[in-house]
């Protein structure tokens, strides 16, 4: 059966070149990078190259890159350490974020609220954009950190990061951005964008899972979140995960090398996919911003059908996709992002995210366009809601 993976925003396959680059570090140059003997020095040298590659992808200096176990750890570290440190110094206890952040940010903010921090969750408009005026107004004398995601993982909306960074800098507040979905999909430059801290994850850019990084602008003080050995310039303890770091470095190098072509390819596939679905299926909304969005993200809500059922039928046809419906998440509530952009349950239930990537072909998109309408129709014909509307129309 044909297999079409359209969930690149969840995770990407590791590129063969990346696996190739990693392999020697499992069995040959396996040394502890903190050791002074040969197998350790080789590991350390490889780590330094990787650090340069990751730094280059976001316009940073290698010394500003600290490897972590992924995007979630980077987010936790940035928020908790900055918040606790600045609060202890009497600088304030207020953070600003948005209602559409990833749970790595939202649940961390909730944990901080329990510790006595105050958090403002900015609203977004129906395309998922924050308002710069609202941001300006939310800043108080005791505001210590603004954290706004670069690109949203569900609806793909890209925030005006540079403008946010400028406001933050003008007001003397640190600016962190969760760039897990932006990395490798958008040209990022921490200087141009006025970013002080930035979270990354390798498994979204064809690198391995379990490795990420936090960019910390030189001069920005950050205390460790994970205590122990002196690794990562005494900022992040734990034996260096060399194979994964090497893989991240190689993935970052490839991402930087092909960024423009990657963006063009994905954008073309995305538009074809979106246009094809919208013209073949009635009663569906396309979410997110029309242009300021992740090049590979198509987020739709189909009326009268439920997301999990769609995913299962698509899976049966070899198509891997995801949904923000309540039933898919196994929770009472649909995605907080879909709610934040003002969609009613009628729409959120039928949520479908299709995300294309480097291994997606035109044929893959054709296959989806061939199969998806029938899946929707099949479920609609089984749906008492659709029946009711059809009845009304008849």
């Amino acid at each position, binding site marked *: 059966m044909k297999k079409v993976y359209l969930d690149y925003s969840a995770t990407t396959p590791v590129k063969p070149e990346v696996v190739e680059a990693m392999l020697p570090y499992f069995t040959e140059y396996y040394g502890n990078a903190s050791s002074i003997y040969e197998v350790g020095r080789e590991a350390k040298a490889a780590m330094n190259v990787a650090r340069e590659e990751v730094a280059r992808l976001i316009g940073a200096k290698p010394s500003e890159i600290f490897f972590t176990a992924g995007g979630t750890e980077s987010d936790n570290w940035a928020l908790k350490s900055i918040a606790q440190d600045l609060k202890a110094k009497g600088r304030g206890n207020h953070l600003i974020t948005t209602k559409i952040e990833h749970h790595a940010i939202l649940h961390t903010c909730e944990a901080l609220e329990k510790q006595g921090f105050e958090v403002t969750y900015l609203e977004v408009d129906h395309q998922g954009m924050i308002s710069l005026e609202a941001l300006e107004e939310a800043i108080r004398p005791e505001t210590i950190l603004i954290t706004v995601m670069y690109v949203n*993982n569900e609806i793909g909306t890209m925030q005006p990061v540079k403008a946010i960074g400028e406001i933050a800098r003008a007001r003397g507040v640190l600016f962190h951005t969760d760039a897990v979905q932006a990395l490798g999909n958008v040209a990022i430059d921490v200087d141009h964008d006025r970013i002080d801290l930035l979270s990354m994850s390798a498994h979204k850019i064809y690198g391995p899972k379990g490795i990420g990084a936090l960019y910390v602008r030189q001069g920005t003080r950050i205390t460790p979140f994970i205590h122990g050995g002196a690794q990562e310039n005494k900022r992040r303890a734990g034996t260096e995960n060399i194979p994964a770091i090497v893989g991240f470095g190689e993935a970052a190098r490839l991402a930087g090398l092909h960024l423009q072509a990657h963006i063009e390819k994905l954008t073309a596939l995305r538009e074809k996919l979106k246009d094809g679905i919208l013209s073949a299926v009635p009663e569906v909304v396309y979410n997110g911003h029309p242009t300021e969005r992740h090049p590979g993200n198509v987020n739709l809500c189909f009326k009268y059908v439920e997301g999990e059922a769609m995913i299962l*039928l698509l899976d049966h046809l070899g198509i891997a996709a995801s949904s923000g419906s309540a039933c898919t998440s196994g929770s009472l509530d*649909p995605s907080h992002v879909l709610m934040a952009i003002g969609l009613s349950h009628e729409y959120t239930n039928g949520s479908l995210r299709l995300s294309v990537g480097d291994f997606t072909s035109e044929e893959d998109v054709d296959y989806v366009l061939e199969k998806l309408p029938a899946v929707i129709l099949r479920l609609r014909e089984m*749906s008492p809601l659709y*029946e009711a509307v059809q009845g009304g129309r008849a």
Partner: protein
Amino acid sequence: MYSEKVMDHFMNPRNVGDIPDASGVGEVGNVSCGDIMKIYLLIDDKEVITDIKFKTFGCGSAIASSSIATVMVKGRTVKEALKLTNQEVLEALGGLPAVKIHCSVLAEQALKAAVLDYANKTGKVFEELEGFDPGDDGHHDHDLVQLEF
């Protein structure tokens, strides 16, 4: 995630559709919960369910629960059918994930709601329906899992 039985009834649901001149129709669930089940019954003079159809808006386990429930009660008398519990639906499906148990409850409730409609229409009384509230769809069973990526 789902048993083979669940997947079978989801992929090939039995008794999908409606019955225009149904003896009773029941609908439970609501859009904000993410599943709605509607059951149509055709009941003869001997109170035997001679035909049953369903329409379901919901996830895989909601569709599979509806499907198997219709198979389990078709040909039974109404009184027998009312003995169907969500536990039996669960067992027949080979189990459901914890967060999906409410779907089996919904199937039981939809059936009861259809019989209630039949009872109301015919003036009959079924003691098995005592205390039954078609608005209570068992959704409080939901666990607060949040997956995201």
